[in-house]
């Protein structure tokens, strides 16, 4: 690792491309796990399996009704847990940047904490506070894997030092995360939808501020432009899905069971919310990154160069 004048630390020993692909796969699997968790909640199946770590006293429970969702979530969690720990260990051995190694272990710590929290939820009969914390920690874990993925693409040029976007992307990420807390509180019956709706206005404003500011200042920078556009598109989609989720909940309130339209609207709302949070983190990472590559092959394209 060397330092160049006018620039930050530069990594000449980049991690292998396999590690990068593994990081991307892990992040995608983490998002799938978030979706699996949302399916459990939307199908009202969170306590279909009343024991933990076993399932109805067995490794594989009888597959019927809500047990399928709960068990699939447990299996997915085990897989993602293993992936994240492997990612952290792999980064520890091959990743030259200390902050990246720390991100890996932070993700591993959150996924292990998440497993413990999931078990506590079952043992303590799903207290709202734990359910909300479980949903929030899932977002943090996904956000960390997104940060790791962005960190593995050093070819993305950072923002020029004289054209900072200020705190907007960071604030947008914080606002979107705060929205996930409020959303989880609504989903788990801890509060009414009003704070979440008010939070949506604030989060959308921050996302617009961040996205539009980056677009205006860095239109020539393709990665930044793409990340900002993605953040705006996901945020607006999320607002639409929020309306759809609320409307579907209201429309099916008299139904004797969770209806598919409500299930898919709420699950999509959770998934796109995670993606918007991930996009805000990616934008923040790209804006603030300091590890620009100097090798020409890396500068042309991360995957090809690596």
């Amino acid at each position, binding site marked *: 690792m060397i330092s160049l004048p006018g620039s*930050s630390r530069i990594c000449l020993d980049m991690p292998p491309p396999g590690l990068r692909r593994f990081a991307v796969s892990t992040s995608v699997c983490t998002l799938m796990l978030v979706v699996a968790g949302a399916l459990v909640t939307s*199908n*009202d*199946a*969170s*306590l*279909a*399996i*009343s*024991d933990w770590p076993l399932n*109805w006293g067995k490794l594989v429970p*009888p597959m*019927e*009704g*809500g*047990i399928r969702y*709960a068990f699939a979530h447990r299996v997915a969690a085990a897989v993602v847990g293993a992936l994240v720990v492997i990612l952290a260990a792999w980064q520890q051995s091959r990743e030259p940047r200390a*902050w990246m190694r720390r991100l890996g272990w*932070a993700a591993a710590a959150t996924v292990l904490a998440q497993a413990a929290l999931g078990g506590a939820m079952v043992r303590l*009969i*799903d*207290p*709202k*506070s734990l359910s*909300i*914390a479980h949903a*929030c*920690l899932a977002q*943090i874990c996904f*956000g*960390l894997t997104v*940060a790791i993925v962005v960190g593995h693409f050093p070819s993305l040029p950072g923002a020029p030092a004289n054209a900072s976007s200020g705190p907007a992307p*960071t604030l947008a*990420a*914080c606002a979107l*995360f*705060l929205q996930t*807390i*409020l959303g*989880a*509180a609504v989903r*788990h019956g*801890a509060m009414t939808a009003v704070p979440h709706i008010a939070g949506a206005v604030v989060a959308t404003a921050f996302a617009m501020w961040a996205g539009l500011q980056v677009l205006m200042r860095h239109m020539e920078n393709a990665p930044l432009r793409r990340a900002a556009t993605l953040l705006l598109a996901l945020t607006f989609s999320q607002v639409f899905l929020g309306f759809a989720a609320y409307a579907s909940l209201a429309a099916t309130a*008299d*139904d*004797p*069971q*969770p209806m598919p339209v409500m299930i898919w609207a709420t699950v999509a709302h959770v998934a796109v919310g995670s993606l918007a949070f991930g996009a805000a983190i990616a934008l*923040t*990472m790209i804006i*603030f*990154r*300091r590890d620009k590559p100097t090798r020409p092959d890396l500068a042309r394209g991360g995957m090809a160069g690596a």
Partner: protein
Amino acid sequence: MKKIWIAVGVMGALTFAGCGGGEKTETKQAETAAPAGGAATPDLTNGATITGKVVFDGAKPVMKTIDMSANPTCMNAHKAAPQKSEEVVINDNGTVKYAFVWVKAGLPDQTWQVPTSTVELNQIGCMYQPHVIGIMAGQNIDIKNSDPTNHNIHPMPAVNQEWNESQPPGSADKMQSFPRQEVMVPVKCQIHNWMRAYIGVVSHPFYAVTGDDGTFSLKGLPPGTYTIQVWQEKYGTQEQQITVGAKDSKTLDFTIKG
């Protein structure tokens, strides 16, 4: 890079700051003592009787059909006629089934004898039977699984202790009770997310659940002025006051507007 760590730290702090709360709150409901030698029983000879019915006023609501396709065993149990939701059940005579009627206030401050008999809550055809039951605090509920499929029983009380237990087919009955008065305790099965039941837990014996004729009867009440409450799953609660003397027999009807 330092800013990224600051951002991560802020988000972590937000999680733990924002994820608290949700604790159950105690209500003003009285806690019932364990059965004691001096516990009172309804005086069926000299006590008053309140009878009545719960009438539905309005167009009979059409209940939705439950989709049991997630479990073929459940679906096969209702091959002849698809199961409708039991949220509102209107009897042929225009009365309401599964309304819980109880003396909410007015009883003397004393401990009442808890019956040694159990109240059955069966799981049959992937439905709870009956949909609404009443028990005294401390009285046992006999939970049966008559289905050839798995169920879990998850009552969600606000005052009493919450629990969640699995009950495979053919397994022994489960005996459970709630020590504190609570009207109503929702019960659900999270394997079959349409299964709902409600348990009225009362610290005295003056309660009833309306049946196929929509009537109720509260017998052996001491003389006094009482607040009688009726609860219905969809339409909520109604209250009326009534004064009775010894050996009185009075009628008190409730009308639920649709």
